[in-house]
């Protein structure tokens, strides 16, 4: 390819690194943007540049947003005494898509794993314990994956929560099946039939 398309090659290369995209689909995406320069490419570039500067983790719950406190934590209507604990932000989004849960979240950022040197301090567990004390929490819903590490983490947290009600999503979440991959109906059913631990 000629020298003049070096930047385009670079763009395609970067796009191909996105999950779900390969070199073929990256080329298609770039061609599409070039055709829609004003409608798509320029606004996309602008918003990318902006978000790259502003995006951050919510200091309270670990959700991502563009402010120190995310929309959910800022919304007083979501302070209903329920906190749903999940492993990753993608799990939070999956829960939100189901429109079933009206409380707040806490994103751990992973699971306990001695073998991978991930302890409570590497996760947002101390912060969760503080929130349960400070935010009038009445129920903690542990929506962790049914993996061995996920279950260890759930028990670890439940063991330290004292008086609040602790529940887990109902069975039916397959072993190793990540929340993110479940459809909304399954999440809704699992949440409805949650069980006290």
């Amino acid at each position, binding site marked *: 390819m000629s020298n003049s398309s070096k930047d385009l090659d670079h763009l395609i290369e970067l796009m191909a690194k996105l999950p779900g995209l390969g070199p073929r689909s990256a080329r298609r995406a770039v061609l599409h943007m070039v055709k829609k320069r004003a409608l798509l490419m320029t606004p996309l570039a602008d918003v990318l540049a902006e978000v790259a500067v502003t995006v951050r983790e919510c200091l309270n719950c670990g959700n991502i947003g563009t402010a120190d406190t995310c929309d959910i934590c800022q919304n007083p209507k979501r302070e209903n005494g329920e906190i749903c604990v999940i492993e990753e932000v993608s799990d939070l989004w999956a829960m939100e898509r189901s429109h079933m849960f009206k409380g707040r979240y806490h994103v751990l950022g992973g699971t306990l794993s*001695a*073998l991978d040197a991930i*302890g*409570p301090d590497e996760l947002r567990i101390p912060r969760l314990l503080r929130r349960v004390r400070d935010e009038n929490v009445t129920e903690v819903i542990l929506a962790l994956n049914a993996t061995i590490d996920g279950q*260890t983490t759930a*028990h*670890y947290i439940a063991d330290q929560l004292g008086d609040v009600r602790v529940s887990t999503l109902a069975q039916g979440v397959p072993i190793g099946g990540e929340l993110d991959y479940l459809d909304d109906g399954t999440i809704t059913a699992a949440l409805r039939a949650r069980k006290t631990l």
Partner: protein
Amino acid sequence: MPNLAVESLNLSHFRSHHVVQIECDPRPVAIYGANGAGKTNILEAISLLSPGRGVRRSSAEEMTRRPEALGWKVSAVLRTQDRLHEIETWSQNGTARQLRIDGKAATQVMLGRIARVLWLIPAMDRLWIEGAEGRRRFLDRTTLSFDPNHGEQVLIYEKAMRERNRLLKNQVTDAHWYRAIEGQIAATGVKIRKAREEALEYIHAAQDQAETAFPTAHLTLTNPENIEFSANSDDLAELLADYRSRDLAAGRTLAGPHRDDVFGVFAAKDVPAKDSSTGEQKALLISLILANGRALKEQTGLPPILLLDEVAAHLDAARRAALYDEICALGAQAWMSGTGPELFEELGDRAQHLLVTEVEGKSKVDLQ
């Protein structure tokens, strides 16, 4: 006659085999040929039709035919009663082994529900003399044959145990963390122990009920820590908590079913298996495999597939004839290997006979 049998076996680039197709009926299969011809490799391929890593416990990469090293595939049609299952397992370019049953991606647990495969290989000749690990593995294979969920429980147990041992090694003292892991160890540990004990009961019952030319082995489950725990997982969890400081000093978990062992006794003589003669030790293992097969047949209606690598060579003519008679009475498709056809003469047309030879660096299999 109800049967579990391989009806066809296809090997592609599997160890010494290039492309091999074997069609067979439910009768036992006698495989003979020179050293290094590729007989044990056939048994290994069949062992992959049941959960686990097969007779040699090899990695997928070790099984790929060299020098090509492209990957390999084993596929088989298995008959269980009146149903046929197509089982395919393969590995490409050194990646993890894949499994498909009837065209659909499947798990090892699903495989365990279809195919029960038991084996005896020369490496097990020293089972009674060597460390507890080999005996525990032997017991777990037997247990898995009765309880297809056993394998998964053992995997969860072992993973949780590795987590706990890492905490101990790193001198972590967070009691909540231990409790969370110990809860899972205890929940699976009691199931594992119970399943092992039940398996031994089935074996003993099957030995007691049989007329057999092979000596009865009396087996007891032992544990160096002499721990007792009931079917209640809380007891085991409590025990682990009690032992925590001692385990911290040792840097590993000292008590639990991961240290279970089997103590075998040659019943008629009341002599421990480890002190029995070489031939007697082998006879005990054969007796156990046959008892396992009879117990399975009684419980599931189907005898298991047996893989008996070089078993005939170690038996005198009378014992050999007795083994063949018992296999035929059991109705098991036993795949047996040996160097010469004379070892299988007593079987006659009660079995199908395969000759394995090496031709230009490739194993060749011919139905005789």
